[in-house]
């Protein structure tokens, strides 16, 4: 090799070119050099008798300082299977999906990890299964048994099963009942009643709702609750029609959903500065009694009760235009999937089978503050949510699937969430938001 010396060093112009080229390469991409591929292994799954350590990854649990709900079940499993140690790893909730994707591609993913049903967000199992990263569970009878008939559309991908549901998180209004009592407000039975109550709350110097305008996930939850009554009560098969291109967001009752948000805004239902509020401001606002309610999964009430001992909190359902139109969104969306490239699949499947047993699912749901799948299937009313009784007593009629699980990509829900922020600031109209949602939907999976 012959070295370059100062004698044949590049001219100033040449050096500039090299600098520019180097800068181009340096700043071109912060993206990793990741390649896709089929990593699904067909290695036979063997029973492991020696000492084994498997890893379970979940989003960080924020249940008022309590331990991760899986820990109790891990301990119970260890007592029955002393040779298998389950190591629990938590990742920040908003980064869990991306962390799993990166680890799966890098080949260092955990043996078992949290996913959500369908394909509507970056934690959904379907795109991971298509890429060959998930273990096919179709032959495991216990896995199929764990999926309720009403949720088959969320879990079956071309007659194959790749994930097992863990529990069910109803999407609700988290209420400070002390504030409602102070304002003299009863649970509203229609949207018009709710708008009137917003004005009462405003006159008393409070607001009915706290929303996190900067969090698309939170504004989206509100829209989906409105859609439960305004869209899905009338047409439970709306998503199937959208998938078959028989309707669009722009030409459907989804427009009513966004118009209702504008009505809420005009009636002063939201707290001052809602458009710029962050997720971190929601629960403190409810806990401190500055607002009457916030939109959140029902399980959050347990954390709030644990943190604010002297408060009184409950969950309720956002009403419809008419009382009989009110619907609850509740899907067994929380699930677990097995890494196809995991080294200890025998032990991992054994642990997942243990978790899928009804008694253990009940225990997990209780620790999570959620509803167990067995309760939902049997129509048993969860004791911690008395206001949800009318819905769980008639689940087939009054409970609808979480819509975004059935959407083809995360862009649709993202457009809905950010679009609502645009409605709150006056930057967007319902038609613009719905058009963007349709564009994202039509991009496909």
């Amino acid at each position: 090799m012959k070295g370059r010396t100062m004698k044949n060093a590049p001219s100033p112009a040449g050096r500039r070119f090299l600098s520019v080229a180097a800068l181009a390469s340096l700043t071109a991409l912060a993206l990793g050099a990741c390649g896709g591929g089929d990593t699904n292994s067909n290695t036979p799954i063997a029973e492991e008798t020696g000492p084994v350590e498997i890893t379970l990854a979940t989003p960080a649990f924020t249940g008022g300082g309590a331990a991760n709900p899986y820990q109790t079940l891990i301990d119970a499993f260890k007592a029955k299977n002393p040779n298998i140690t389950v190591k629990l790893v938590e990742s920040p909730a908003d980064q869990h999906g991306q962390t799993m994707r990166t680890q799966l591609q890098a080949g260092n993913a955990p043996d078992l990890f949290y996913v959500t049903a369908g394909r509507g967000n970056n934690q959904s199992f379907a795109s991971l299964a298509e890429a060959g990263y998930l273990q096919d569970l179709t032959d495991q009878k216990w896995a199929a048994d764990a999926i309720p008939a009403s949720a088959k559309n969320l879990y079956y991908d071309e007659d194959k099963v790749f994930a097992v549901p863990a529990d069910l998180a109803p999407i609700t209004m988290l209420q400070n009942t002390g504030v409602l009592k102070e304002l003299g407000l009863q649970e509203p039975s229609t949207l018009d009643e709710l708008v009137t109550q917003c004005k009462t709350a405003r006159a008393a110097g409070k607001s009915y709702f706290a929303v996190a305008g900067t969090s698309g996930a939170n504004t989206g939850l509100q829209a989906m609750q409105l859609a439960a009554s305004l869209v899905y009560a009338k047409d439970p098969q709306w998503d199937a029609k959208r998938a078959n291109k028989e309707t669009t967001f722009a030409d459907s009752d989804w427009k009513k959903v966004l118009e209702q948000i504008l009505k809420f805004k005009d009636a002063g239902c939201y707290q001052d500065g809602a458009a710029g509020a962050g997720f971190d401001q929601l629960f403190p606002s409810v806990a401190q009694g500055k607002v009457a309610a916030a939109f959140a999964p029902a399980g959050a009430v347990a954390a709030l009760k644990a943190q604010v001992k002297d408060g009184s909190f409950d969950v309720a359902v956002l009403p419809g235009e008419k009382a009989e139109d009110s619907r609850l969104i509740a899907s067994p969306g929380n699930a677990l999937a097995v890494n196809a490239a995991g080294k200890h699949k025998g032990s991992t499947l054994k642990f997942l089978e243990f978790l899928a047993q009804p008694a253990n699912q009940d225990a997990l749901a209780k620790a999570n503050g959620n509803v167990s799948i067995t309760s939902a299937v049997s129509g048993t009313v969860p004791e911690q949510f008395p206001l949800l009784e009318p819905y769980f007593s008639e689940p087939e009629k009054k409970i609808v699937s979480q819509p975004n699980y059935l959407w083809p990509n995360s862009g649709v829900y993202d457009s809905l969430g950010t679009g609502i922020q645009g409605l709150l600031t006056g930057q967007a109209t319902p038609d613009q938001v719905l058009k963007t949602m349709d564009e994202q939907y039509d991009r496909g999976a």
Partner: protein
Amino acid sequence: MTAQLEQKAEGARVIGRQPRASKKNGREGDRGTERRFATWWWFTPALLALVLIHYAPSAIGAFFAFTNWKGLGKWQFVGWDNFAAIAEGGPTTTALINTFIIGISFVVLTNVLGLLLALGLNRTVKSRNVIRTLIFAPVVLSSLATSYIWKFIFEQGGPLNEFLGSVGLESLKRTWLGDPSTVLPAIIIVMVWQNVGLVMVMYLAGLATVSPELEEAASLDGASLWQRFNYVVLPAIMPSVVIAMTLMLINGLRVFDQIQALTGGGPYGASETLAVTIYKETFVLGRFGFGAALALVMSLIIIILTVAQRLLLRTSSKG
């Protein structure tokens, strides 16, 4: 004619060179070759590491700009489709405009304020070392951490609105980060606050090279304050001006941390820059191919603007 020109050019280069030792031959020449070989030998591991860790992933990333990869699974070549989608405009145009607004405002404000602070704290102020340290302190803090503090300050019920209310300026209270008309100025304030100390230090270093005698001489000759700055100080600190403006332009155009922490690009895309759009398209929406194409475009813009700025500053310093 061509040969003559080349000869002249070669002559000019020879004149410009440093005097060399006598022509190497025999053992001396061998020693030189050995030295060169040794230089490369020691240099190669670092070069390899640099290529493998830095350039190769970037080049592979750039390759994906021509695919429809979604971050998982298989992909297909789509040629220039991703670049065509960028050229169609829409959100990327807003992001591009915001990037320019933030980048240019950031360069101007950090440099003007940094220079003023440096001039003010250069020699005369008694407690200048303490003040310099206080102004420089935000530079050493994490930009994410400081952004979250500023987010709290800008909140509806935050200290800024509380202060405005307490001094009777109720009408000025607003949702600073949730209002499309105030969100960009708010972000620029945070960025300038954090970086002005760094620019000040660069200018202080430049000012240290200006001879006080020269300034005194100009003063005795009757030069005004502005004339002393323009004809004595500014030419001397021109290297600092070039460095400070180049670095701030690059930092301003590629800003990500502060925006992600303060607004996430909102409200409704009003503060989205190219870097934030790249992140969102790539990691939130799973459009890795499109995100990679956008990253290439952003890099190209930064390179063009940086080179243009350097040429402009070189011309003005010669002028």
